[in-house]
C-alpha cells in the first residue's frame, strides 16, 4: 500500500511523505497517533472509453442533484463539486 498524499500532524509537520510504502506496523502507529484517514494509490486499469463514460456519469449526477434554480452560492458549490468529481474520476 503506497501513500498518495503526505500525512501531516496538526502543526503541519510531515509524518510520512507521499510515495511511502506502508506496512502493518506503520499503520498501527498511525492509528495510535489518531490518524483516521489516509489516501493511498490504487492501480488504475481503466481504458479511455471507460474513463470518458464515468466522466459523463459524473456530470449527469451533478446535473441531477443540482436540478432547479438557486443562488449564486449554490452555483459556486456545484462548480466546486463538479471540478472535484472530475479530478477524482480522471
Amino acid at each position, binding site marked *: 500500500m503506497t501513500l498518495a498524499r503526505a500525512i501531516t500532524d496538526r502543526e503541519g509537520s510531515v509524518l510520512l511523505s507521499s510515495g511511502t510504502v506502508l506496512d502493518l506496523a506503520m499503520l*498501527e502507529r498511525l492509528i495510535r497517533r*489518531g490518524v483516521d484517514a489516509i489516501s493511498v494509490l490504487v492501480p488504475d486499469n481503466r481504458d479511455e472509453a471507460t474513463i470518458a463514460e464515468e466522466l459523463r456519469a459524473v456530470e449527469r449526477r451533478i446535473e441531477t*442533484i443540482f436540478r432547479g434554480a438557486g443562488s449564486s*452560492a449554490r452555483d459556486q458549490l456545484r462548480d466546486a463539486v463538479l471540478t*472535484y468529481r472530475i479530478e477524482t474520476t480522471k
Partner: protein
Amino acid sequence: MTAPTLDRLPDHAEALPSLPEVVNYLIRALNDDNANLETLAHHINSDPAIVARLLAAANSVTAGLSKRVHSAGQAFLLLGADRIASIILASALIYRYDTHTSGFNARMLWQHSLGVATCARVLAEQTGVDPELAFTSGLLHDIGQLLMHTASPSHFLKALDRHLNEDIPLFVAERSVFGYDHCDAGRVLATAWKLPTDIIDAIAAHHEPDGFGSEIGNLIHVSECLSHALDLGELPSNRVPDLSELACANLGLSWPKFAAQFAEIEARFDDFRVSLGI
C-alpha cells in the same frame, strides 16, 4: 383528521423516548471544562449496549491489524476522546430512535444527519467554530422529523409523499400539510429536552438561516447543503437545497478553497458509517 398544531407538539414530545443519559452528559460537557474522560467512561460502562458498539467501532478501525480491542479503556487510547465521543453520541441516538415503518426509515434520517455532522465538524475546523458543538448540532438538526412522525404518522407520510412525488423540499411539503416544518418542530423538541440554546438555534435555522443571526445556524445550513452536494447518505431523490449567500459570506467561505476538504469529509463519513454499522 387535522394535523397536530405546533402549540400541541410538546404533548407529543413525551411520547418519544427520552435522550440517553450518555447523550445528555456529552451535550452538557460541551460547555463544561470540568468534564473528563473518567466521568465519560463511567457513563459508557453503565450501558453495555454502548460499550458493545464502541468496541465494534474500535475493532472495525483495527481490522486486519495484530491487536483486538477488548475494553472501553483500550478504545479510548486507540481512538482518542473526540472520536470516542462522536461514536458514542451517534450510536446512542441512532439506536434509541430507530423507527422503521412503511414509508419512514429513521436509519436513513440518521445516515443523512451523520453526513451533515461530518461536514459540520470539518467546516467548523476551518472557520473557527467549536467542532464538537458543530458535530452534535449536525447529528440533531433533523430531530423535528422524529417528533412530527410521532405526532401524526399519516400526515408526515403525506408530506414525505409530496416531497418525493412533486420534487419539492421536504420542509415546504411539511408546511403544506402541517402548517409548520421540521425546523419548527425540532425547536420544540430541543426545548423540551432542555438542549443548549446554540443547538436549538442550529436546528431552527438550518433551512432558512438568514434572520437568525446564528453562527452555528449558518454552519449547519451550509453543512446541510454540502452533505447533499457530496451525496452523503442514501437519500432517495437527492436534491441540493438552496444555499444562503449570507450564511456563506458570514462564515467567510470560499468554495474553490474549501473544495480541498471534500476528500477528507468523504473519508470521515465512510469511516463513521462503517464504525456505526449504518
